[in-house]
């Protein structure tokens, strides 16, 4: 498993490639990946930029716990989480979660669990700069 909190833009595809290369050969039949990307709109407003704050230390610890839980529960071959912090622009990747397993059902369920737990519990906070001013995002969508 690997967890990265990145203060600079990241490329999900090269991070997936790099991580997968270290996994044991021939063991995984499926991987499921979710990439969250910054849109240029939210709750009806146009969003020009976004700042993501986190709790250094606790955030990484929490993301590692999510990976360990997913690995244990779905017998994963590998798990990866990358999350961006700092100043983001539209189309920037925000988050990447990925799960490698023997079968597709486990890969789908594990990556869904990972993104849901991350959204509900990992200490990150979004502040948006919209045409109407700067505002903190108050809550995540339930699913």
């Amino acid at each position, binding site marked *: 498993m690997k967890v990265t909190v990145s203060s600079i833009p990241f490329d999900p595809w090269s991070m997936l490639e790099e991580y997968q290369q270290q996994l044991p050969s021939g063991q995984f039949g499926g991987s499921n990946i979710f990439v969250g990307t910054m849109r240029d709109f939210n709750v009806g407003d146009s969003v020009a930029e976004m700042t993501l704050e986190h709790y250094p230390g*606790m955030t990484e610890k929490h993301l590692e716990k999510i990976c360990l839980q997913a690995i244990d529960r779905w017998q994963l071959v590998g798990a990866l989480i990358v999350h961006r912090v700092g100043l983001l622009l539209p189309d920037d990747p925000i988050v990447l979660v990925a799960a490698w397993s023997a079968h597709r059902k486990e890969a789908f369920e594990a990556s869904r669990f990972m993104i849901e737990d991350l959204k509900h519990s*990992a200490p990150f906070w979004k502040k948006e700069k919209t045409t109407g001013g700067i505002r*903190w*995002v108050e809550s995540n969508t339930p699913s």
Partner: protein
Amino acid sequence: MTITVKFFASLSEQLGKKEISLNAQDNLTLENVWSQATNNAVMPTKLLMAINMEYAQLTDPVNDGDEVAYFPPVTGG
């Protein structure tokens, strides 16, 4: 005892502080620490909190050397 208290995001902005070091008496809970660290500010209804980077409850005890944090609902991902 000495504890570190951190505030994040909108809460940090509202209180005008990010991190303080608190010299406090023993046998405090997270609720007591909030009062001392914020000069009895009204507690937000949806406040989250942690002790040593693990989620905790208002009634949980705080010990010497602990790092305590208060923050609003998370919005990552």
